[in-house]
């Protein structure tokens, strides 16, 4: 397992003596390849805090982690001999708010910033920049623009490109599709799915969109008030009756399936994953 958390808690320090316990007692492990995970949960449930541990930006205040063989706990920060930088090459994290990630004069400089830091030659980095900018749905003319004059959605795409160019083993995206138009959102999700399927990489996406969870993810993590309350199959999650208690919604396809089932009074086979599968299931149901 590439990422391993053992009873990890994290407390934000503030001047107020009581720190804020943002995640509590989280135990999980994530493979270095072949996983497609979504992380969901209410606003403020600690999702962003959790993923910032996965590339050692934050270190647990309680508990232990093991990231690509490097052991990290609350004393790690003081021991300078533990090198955290290599972890960040392997685990690429796209931040929730692109403003903090973009700081160079031009988009191109910003995209090559990561690869250059990890020792990729300038020519190679620029080559990658030209590729990834297209992957995220922008054209090459954007490379010369200033990242600060872009629209919110364009910024988001550029910030994703900056991480893709690092070619990490594990790709973590904190709400990558928020603020994007529906077409753009679906196109990007397909990109992440391709990265997962064709390159067999592990992708973890934080999202508030249950359809994404249901259609793409093989595994879903649910955070609630800092606690990891569910880790497993999305199908099972949505077949439980009490997901409303976690303030989660039912995906559109399942709503449609239920609606069809009651309207036409037919038996539709359990949990279709996509529109196509639903269509097939309806056909089956009608036949019977």
């Amino acid at each position: 397992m590439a990422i391993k958390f053992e009873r990890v808690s994290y407390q934000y320090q503030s001047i107020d003596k009581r720190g804020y316990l943002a995640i509590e007692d989280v135990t999980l492990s994530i493979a270095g390849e072949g996983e497609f995970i979504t992380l969901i949960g209410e606003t403020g449930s600690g999702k962003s805090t959790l993923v910032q541990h996965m590339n050692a930006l934050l270190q647990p205040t309680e508990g232990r982690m093991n990231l690509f063989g490097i052991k990290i706990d609350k004393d790690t920060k003081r021991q300078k001999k533990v090198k955290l930088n290599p972890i960040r090459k392997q685990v690429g994290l796209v931040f929730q708010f692109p403003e903090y990630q973009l700081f160079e004069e031009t988009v191109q400089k910003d995209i090559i910033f990561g690869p250059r830091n990890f020792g990729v030659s300038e020519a190679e980095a620029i080559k990658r920049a030209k590729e990834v900018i297209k992957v995220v749905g922008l054209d090459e003319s954007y490379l010369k623009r200033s990242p600060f004059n872009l629209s919110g959605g364009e910024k988001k795409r550029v910030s994703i490109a900056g991480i893709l160019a690092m070619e990490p083993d594990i790709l973590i995206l904190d709400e990558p599709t928020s603020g994007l138009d529906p077409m753009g959102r679906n196109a990007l999700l397909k990109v992440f799915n391709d990265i997962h399927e064709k390159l067999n990489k592990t992708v973890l996406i934080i999202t508030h969109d249950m359809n994404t969870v249901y259609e793409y993810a093989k595994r879903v993590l649910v955070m609630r008030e800092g606690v990891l309350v569910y880790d497993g199959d999305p199908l099972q999650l949505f077949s439980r009756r009490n997901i409303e208690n976690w303030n989660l919604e039912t995906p559109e396809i399942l709503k449609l399936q239920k609606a069809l089932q009651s309207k036409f009074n037919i038996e539709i086979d359990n949990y279709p994953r996509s529109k196509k599968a639903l269509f097939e299931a309806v056909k089956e149901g009608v036949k019977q």
Partner: protein
Amino acid sequence: MKNIVIGRYVPGKGFLYTLDPRTKIIALLLLMAGTFIIDELIHMVVAIAMIGIILLIGKISIRRVYLGLRPLLFLLIFTFAFQILFNTQGELLYEMPLYYSPLTIGLVALVVVTWMLTKKYIRFKLIYFLIMVALSLFIFSTLNEPFVFGQGAFTVYEDALQMALFIMLRLIIIVTLSTILTITTKPTDLNLGLESVLKPLKIVRVNTEEIAMIISIALRYIPTLLDEANKIMLAQASRGVDFQEGKLKEKVMQIVSLLVPMFIISFKRSDELANAMEARSFVPGQPRTRLHQLVWKTLDTLVIIFAIGFLFGSIYIRVMV
């Protein structure tokens, strides 16, 4: 970086929170003036003790004030050392011969190297540093070996010691007082208070409202900008900037790459803030009414009397005693 508390309001209870901001600002100025007038060490110590009592009654933890002082520790130590080393007036209090021989210089070099190599593993760096300095002085002063290079002396003069302690205590008092003010006063209250304290300046056509607004916005945004800097550092670290490591040149590059987005973000912030204020019909210079009126209470009068008493007391002591 996270623990810088200058300008941050910390909610709490205690009499300092219920005081009128005007009272706090005026009392702060009076007390500061008082500490500049005092010229006896004993009285300074009394002043410090008084502030300690204020903290105690106001239920403000010493730790918070210490956090406010911490960024200044370096400055404090520097001024202290500077005074001790270069001020040679007054009575000679203490003299310590120093022997600069190959042996002692070698040993001290060893101490310095040890310090550089081990400092990152030590938690209390400052204490460790002071111990090392003391150790070096000890080596220089005790080992008068034959292979002599030369001899000097470490001297402490009365005035130097007094000035050093003085400057230090004054700085501590000033910073503590202002930390108390910002910890216990909401930015909006601070703004109101400043505005009405500055009102007399209106006679000479100074735009006091704007000044008060500028000051309070600046104070308000220090912690926000620090948070922002922290987030940018995280974002850069996640793209391979190694803030742990790096030679001087790399460190400078890192700071530059931090400053650029900081500036851009602050300009954007101020733009947004201006828009937000305009969207709520803020017109500079227009007379405004307030939702919360400041109310002067008996406690405020008492505090002001106390502060005036302190100031006059220190003038009296300075002139008469």
